[in-house]
């Protein structure tokens, strides 16, 4: 009898020994309450912290929207040419912009370009120094690598919840969500690029009396630049992949339209905006790839 009751009441193999219903509810409630408390106490302060960022975002978006469209097309084509030195890409870019504008997507496209540019910029500004720090110490690398893995693998909806609880809905939380997802490649590849720098060249810098700062700026970063650029390319692609998700928490633009199309089953709207996002992705990808290639031109060492 003793054994029987033990098996059924305490260790059933068909039913998982769960925490009691009330206990579980209390646990979840406890976590929720704790975070809500945190939000109540600090939320406003944290939001205030992001006000300059919000202002910048709004300013940048307004700037892009206020620029006359022909000028905008010229500027964007010039940037594409500066990056890729390729006329086919310039013509392609102009075509995409003209068609998108003609099909009524000009404003959304500018909004999307604006948030992508700003989030890429933020990823670069924080990601590269972080990657450099990571390359300097194996311990930092051991700690940061799993964190980056988590940032890339945890479904973004999971961290959308605390972000929304803390910052509400709007551009800043959207930007945060995009950056969390998009920053890992640039950090990872900066770290990798610096670690892969030719030991012989580094030794030469040492032999001529370079300080670690001089080594960083005259050898490590320049030689790692093609790799860093591969990271920036991936970061841009991942940021673009997030525009629809970011639309869920109030980021306007092409992503928002796609979301509207899904909710209302507007096939054409979804298709148009989807293709617009894809076109931006292709242009960004090609431009940054060509740019990376040009950086690499002299990097391969040839002996003999």
């Amino acid at each position: 009898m003793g054994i029987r009751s033990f098996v059924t009441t305490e260790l059933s193999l068909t039913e998982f020994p769960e925490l009691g219903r009330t206990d579980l509810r209390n646990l979840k409630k406890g976590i929720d309450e704790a975070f809500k408390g945190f939000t109540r106490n600090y939320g406003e302060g944290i939001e205030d912290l992001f006000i300059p960022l919000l202002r910048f975002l709004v300013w940048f978006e307004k700037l892009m929207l206020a620029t006359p469209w022909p000028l905008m097309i010229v500027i964007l084509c010039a940037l594409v040419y500066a990056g890729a030195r390729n006329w086919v890409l310039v013509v392609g870019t102009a075509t995409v912009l003209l068609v998108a504008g003609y099909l009524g997507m000009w404003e959304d496209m500018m909004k999307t370009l604006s948030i992508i540019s700003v989030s890429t910029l933020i990823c670069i500004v924080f990601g590269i120094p972080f990657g450099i720090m990571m390359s300097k110490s194996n311990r930092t690398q051991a700690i940061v690598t799993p964190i980056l893995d988590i940032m890339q693998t945890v479904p973004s909806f999971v961290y959308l919840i605390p972000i929304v609880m803390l910052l509400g809905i709007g551009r800043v939380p959207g930007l945060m969500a995009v950056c969390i997802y998009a920053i890992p490649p640039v950090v990872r590849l900066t770290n990798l690029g610096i670690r892969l720098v030719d030991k012989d060249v580094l030794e030469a810098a040492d032999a001529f009396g370079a300080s670690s700062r001089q080594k960083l700026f005259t050898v490590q970063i320049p030689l790692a630049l093609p790799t860093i650029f591969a990271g920036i390319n991936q970061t841009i692609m991942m940021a673009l992949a997030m525009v629809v998700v970011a639309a869920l928490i109030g980021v306007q633009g092409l992503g928002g339209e796609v979301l509207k199309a899904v909710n209302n089953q507007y096939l054409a709207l979804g298709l148009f905006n989807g293709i617009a996002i894809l076109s931006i992705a292709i242009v960004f990808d090609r431009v940054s790839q060509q740019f990376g290639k040009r950086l690499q031109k002299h990097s391969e060492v040839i002996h003999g």
Partner: protein
Amino acid sequence: MADNSIDVKGLYKIFGSNGKKYIEAVQNGMSKDELNAKHGHVLGLKNINITMPSAKIQVIMGLSGSGKSTMIRHINRLIAPTVGEVMFQGVDVCKMSETDLREFRRHKTAMVFQKFALLPHRTVVKNALYGLELQGIDKKEAEERARHWLQRVGLDGFEDRYPNELSGGMQQRVGLARALTNDADILLMDEAFSALDPLIRTDMQAMLLELQEELHKTVVFITHDLDEALRLGDRIAILRDGAVIQQGTGQEIVLNPADAYIADFVKEVNRGRVIRVDTIMETAENGTATVSIPSGSRLENVAKLLSDSGETLANVVDDKGITIGAVSMRSTIEAMVTPAKH
């Protein structure tokens, strides 16, 4: 002229997490293999004592893995010793602070590497001025000085090319120009010509000797090639398993190899190119010969003079033209062929 000799004293290097711990064992005769097998440490250098003369070329020679690169890297402390001293102008390089060491590397030393180690993203001229840039010297002046040295090594017209557009020989000229632009007293060359084709290598050796005639730097030149060592070295130290097994002038080593290992090394050498006339001349005879040759000439030049002139005897004269001895064709040829006993 300042004394720019380098004095290496009692230098030991044991690679591994705790090299100091095994110094005593090594000093008491533990071998490289035993140290590695028992304690997992690698004996890099063992009790090195070399006085590298000021304004001369000191060659360090040895086979691959004998510790040459380890040795030369102690002079600018790219590798720190386990124990020992490297004295230069009264200061021990091994005891310098980080800042002093950086200044020492910037102003007193320059290095040329086996694999060139150029900065691939920079043009030739930007490579050559790298040392000056690190010193914080004005861009314009740095570029002027770099261009001067690029021209000296025969690279004018290539200033704006990138290293990977140049052949190996030209890349190493850039390496040499980069070192010379630094205007340092010490020039460290780690197998600088080993990666080059034989013909280009001979050219580079000639260029180095020509430059040295006027620059008088203290050159430390690493090679695994005896011919190169004999051609360039005012003094030669031979390394084996991290220890110096013989040092002296090329002639001393060729004439009196310290052991069978070195004897084996030197037996194929062109002795006519190494041995000087002073070694074999006889002081007694005087005035009978009609041709003369300067003291310090190599035997191959003596042989050429004698056969060209059809004489069998030549006077040896000092730099004032005074006869100090004489040398015969017979003794010249005898000294040039390898003695049978080796």
